[in-house]
């Protein structure tokens, strides 16, 4: 095999690997958007909290790094539910004229708050959690670090569990019904407001999983969630707001475009390539690839 082709394949693989983890982020955002009809501007900070939770769990407490991912998800799920109960209940109390604006301002404020609240605790310096495994695996065309490979496989597993749960469990079916038509779901006897903390908790736990999975390879610091969150938002726009399929396909595309841009153009603009593609897709198809307001 020529050196050029194997180089291309190795970048492609690394794009798919990172794309899977973007997918987790975007799927979490999609669940929250679909059920609550809000964009969570603090999504990146839940990713950051997931990274710190994995760091504390694996480095400070010496818990198995793979188990630390579950710890991070559990901790952030609880934080997510508390945040929803504490800050987002006015959204559906019927007292706001413009709940969308409230959600935007509240989650934006929360984002800044969370970024700053971790500085006195962990300091401004970059941390890294324990690797998920040592060494690399030879995938034939390309050597991949075991930690990254495991991270990617775990995110595929988590996305699969989430999608199957949405299709097959009572909670999942209820969440899909609410995303499709909130009033009709209420009239069918679903306590729609009690499903909001579930959706927010699950969505933020997904962000935390992404943060925890990338914490060994990328660095964790107070503002590390901002770029991850802007990518997740861009993926939602690319895939079509509210579509789970769109979130996953969009995330893979973004990962691959970034990797290929680094290979063929220049690595310095890594974060630019994906957004460039998104701008192009939106110019051609403004509803995104799978334009939909429902989970489908």
């Amino acid at each position, binding site marked *: 095999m020529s050196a050029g082709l194997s180089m291309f394949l190795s970048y492609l693989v690394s794009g798919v690997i990172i794309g899977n983890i973007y997918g987790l982020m975007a799927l979490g955002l999609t669940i929250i958007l679909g059920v609550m009809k809000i964009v969570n501007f603090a999504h990146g900070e839940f990713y950051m909290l997931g990274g710190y939770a994995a760091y504390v769990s694996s480095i400070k407490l010496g818990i198995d790094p793979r188990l630390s991912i579950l710890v991070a998800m559990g901790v952030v799920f609880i934080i997510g*539910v508390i945040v929803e109960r504490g800050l987002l209940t006015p959204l559906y109390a019927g007292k706001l004229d413009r709940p969308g604006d409230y959600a935007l301002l509240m989650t934006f404020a929360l984002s800044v708050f969370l970024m700053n609240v971790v500085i006195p605790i962990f300091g401004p310096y970059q941390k890294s959690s324990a690797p998920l495994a040592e060494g690399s695996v030879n995938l034939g065309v390309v050597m991949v670090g075991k930690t990254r490979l495991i991270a990617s496989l775990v995110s595929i597993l988590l996305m699969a569990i989430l999608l199957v*749960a949405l299709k*097959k*469990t*009572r*909670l999942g*079916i*209820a969440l*899909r*019904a609410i995303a*499709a*038509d909130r*009033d*009709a*779901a*209420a*009239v*069918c*006897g*679903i*306590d*729609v*407001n*009690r499903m909001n*903390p*579930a959706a927010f*908790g699950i969505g933020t736990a997904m962000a935390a999983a992404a943060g925890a999975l990338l914490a060994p390879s990328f660095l964790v610091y107070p503002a590390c969630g901002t770029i991850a969150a802007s990518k997740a938002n861009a993926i939602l726009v690319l895939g079509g707001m509210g579509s789970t399929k769109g979130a996953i396909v969009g995330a893979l595309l973004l990962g691959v475009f970034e990797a290929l841009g680094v290979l063929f153009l220049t690595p310095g603009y890594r974060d630019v390539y994906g957004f460039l593609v998104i701008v192009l897709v939106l110019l051609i198809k403004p509803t995104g690839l799978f334009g*939909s307001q*429902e*989970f*489908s």
Partner: protein
Amino acid sequence: MTTLEIKDLSKAFGGLQAVHHFSCTAVSGQIHALIGPNGAGKSTIFNLICGVIKPDSGQVLLDGEDLVGLPPHKITARGIARTFQNVRLFKNMSVRDNIVVALHATRNQGIIPAIASAGRDSSSMRELHNKADAVLEIVGLPHRAEALAKNLPYGEQKRVELARALGCPAKALLLDEPTTGMNPTESVEMMQTIHAVKDRGIAILLVEHNMRVVMDISDVVTVMSFGEVICAGTPQHVCQDEKVIEAYLGEKR
């Protein structure tokens, strides 16, 4: 025996008195039609009964219990189910899952029980599927269980919506224009289904514009105009009433 009694219900939207001292009673085994020109407040009354909007005053009594102020899901749990004027199915879900959503209402819910029961879900899910299929049998669509709701013809979508309402623990059923947009065959099938539902001892309150349907199947008719009841009685009685003719056709010259 179920009695749905609506007493003195009023609702204003800003300066518009949408519903003004509205009263009527539906009992099980009876079809009670609610008719009136567009904008008379019929759909508003359904929304008030279901708790989607709150009345300014009045009571909605189901077997003597006042439901006003309860959230919609609790009203459904007490025994009031409904369909919508423009079909509001969960379009991207299967017909069966649409009904499973309604069957959900009779079960404990919330995050913790739902997650805790996730492991046992497969068996209880099978149970729910069987129940959903039984309900589909009533509306004559058992063969459509697997289809996506959005792929069904309009008439069948309306029947699925009726099935979804029957999936709720319904004692009283509110049907908002069940035959609108249907061809004559579909319309007749729908009426037969509604009859079958009535015979199961469910109280039915029906909004309908198709007078043939109203005259054929209703036992009692209440006529509304501008938010107020202008006449109530048997179908024969109301179609001879002066005020009803006036509301529909205008004053005699």
